[in-house]
């Protein structure tokens, strides 16, 4: 990693340069909230955004994608290429970059998922520092910091950016479009001070110390029944989550039944039929068991494989859940707190 300093005013040039070269996706305003969308000029970027409606994962793992096309008559696959557009994901907050790292674990190891992997390889990630909001709790997992998973990361130091660069491509781009200097001792000091200041702004100090164990120990706790009664079974939490990766696969054929495609779409373990098999057996038939599974898998199932929890504390599910189910309250309650 190399550390550079660039003037804040030159951000415009950087983005302008990128836009001319590649597809650039970044946070833009929509109906009073923010979304990651393609931009045509730097002015559209809203880098003071709080949290986007959907995380950037949709650009690597789209809500719906065709995996292959085929001819029905002779079961011949006519197109199994992965279609990828090289692009820059601009302005990602540390939680979302951490989210990508967690997705990387699933999709780029054992049985590499070519769709995700190809897009990831063709995506340049430029991060941006943030200010915690009401619903953020990335501090609980340490995902308010990010050390890899991006090419360039911009930390706001008021009049200038402290720029962390991890890839040759990132470094070249930076040099090509903006003037920048090596970071000095003083800059580094300022940088650490800035991150410390940000840390103090977090609304929650969540105790997660016994989490996996508690999930086992409290597996039969009435907590889950209560959550099951409240849960709307709508799956909104999974859709907005930067780390949920479950999917469904369906075949679609043309009306003439000659050709078809195999399509995968985002799925959610909160849907009633998620674990149902033929002959009417459903391994998680009630909402309580499904809400529980979401936590069980995130804070323990995934952890048992990849040594990290499958949550980055972005708070999107907290905001999306009309029933008010939030990791913060669930975890607090599990840990024996009052759960607010």
């Amino acid at each position, binding site marked *: 990693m190399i550390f550079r300093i660039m003037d804040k005013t030159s951000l415009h040039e950087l983005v302008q340069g990128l836009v001319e070269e590649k597809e650039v996706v970044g946070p833009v305003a*929509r*109906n*009073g*909230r923010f*979304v990651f969308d393609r931009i045509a000029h730097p002015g559209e970027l809203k880098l003071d955004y709080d949290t986007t*409606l*959907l995380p950037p994962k949709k650009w690597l793992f789209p*809500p719906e994608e065709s995996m292959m096309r085929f001819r029905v008559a002779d079961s011949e696959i006519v197109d199994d290429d992965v279609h990828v557009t090289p692009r820059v994901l601009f302005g990602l907050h540390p939680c979302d970059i951490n989210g990508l790292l967690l997705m990387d674990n699933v999709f780029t190891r054992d049985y590499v998922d070519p769709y995700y992997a190809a897009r990831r390889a063709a995506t340049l990630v430029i991060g941006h520092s943030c200010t915690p909001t009401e619903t953020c709790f990335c501090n609980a997992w340490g995902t308010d910091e990010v050390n890899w998973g991006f090419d360039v990361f911009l930390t706001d130091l008021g009049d200038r950016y402290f720029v962390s660069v991890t890839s040759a491509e990132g470094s070249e781009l930076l040099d090509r479009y903006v003037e920048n200097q090596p970071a000095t001792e003083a800059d580094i000091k300022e940088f650490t001070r800035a991150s410390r200041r940000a840390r103090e702004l977090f609304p929650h100090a969540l105790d997660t110390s016994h989490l996996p164990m508690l999930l086992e120990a409290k597996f039969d706790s009435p907590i889950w029944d209560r959550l099951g*009664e*409240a*849960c*709307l*079974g*709508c*799956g*909104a939490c*999974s*859709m*907005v989550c930067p780390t949920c990766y479950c999917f469904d696969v*369906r075949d*679609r*054929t*043309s*009306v*003439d*039944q000659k050709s078809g495609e195999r399509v995968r779409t*985002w799925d*959610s373990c909160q*849907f*009633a*039929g998620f674990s149902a098999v033929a002959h009417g057996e459903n391994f998680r038939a009630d*909402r309580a068991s499904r809400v529980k599974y979401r936590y069980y898998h995130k804070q323990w199932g995934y952890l048992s494989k990849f040594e990290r929890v499958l949550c980055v504390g972005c708070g999107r599910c907290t905001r*999306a859940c*009309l*029933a*008010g189910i939030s990791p913060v309250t669930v975890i607090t309650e599990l840990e024996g707190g009052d759960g607010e």
Partner: protein
Amino acid sequence: MRPTVAIFGLASDYGCQVQITNAEDDLPALLGALDIVYWQLASSASLPEEYDVAIIEGAVTIEEHVEFVQAVRETAKVVVAIGACAVCGGIPALAGESLDERVLDVYGRVEGVAVGRRAPRPLSDFIAVDYTVPGCPIDAQEFLGVVTRVLLGLSDPVSDDPLCASCKVAENVCFFDSGEVCLGVVTRAGCGARCVGLGRPCMACRGIAPGANRQGLASVLAERDADLDTVRRRLAIYNSREGS
């Protein structure tokens, strides 16, 4: 062999049948895949004795309809219900149970008009329905998807889950965030939260999702001090049969 298909309209506004014709680009393929032997809206051919697939729009609102759909069920191997009227009663069922009042209201007398009337009901109250294409109106592409599955003999693909997930995928801002009530929470998914995307809360035209937590919605509303009765009445616009 192309299956023979008969398309029928009961009490409805024909909007769903019109939607079939609105799949202009796919019509040739559709007509190639199906042998439409009866369709009053589009053809003078009279109803044959036998056909494989019946596509039925509209609610059952007169005695004649009851016998009719039973006869259809006996003839057809596959019955497809299209549109809110056929699937959940829809707007016709908003007329409710005591029709005499309504008749008097509209016609000024109760005898000799609206003959054979009976409280409107969805198709599934009388006959087994194999496939449903919900919505008011149906979406032409969804219809084509179902027809394709009928042709292949595959199961009914209709979703049992509520709408919110697809609303999130569409990156709409939730109506509840601005203090408005939206019925998507309990409505059957599949339309992509079309109305919400266009700035209007969902009215549950696709019916209530089997996987919905209605009690949960009631708590959400209570939490927000919403008037439960108003919401109940709104839910009943398309789903008057589903007391909540």
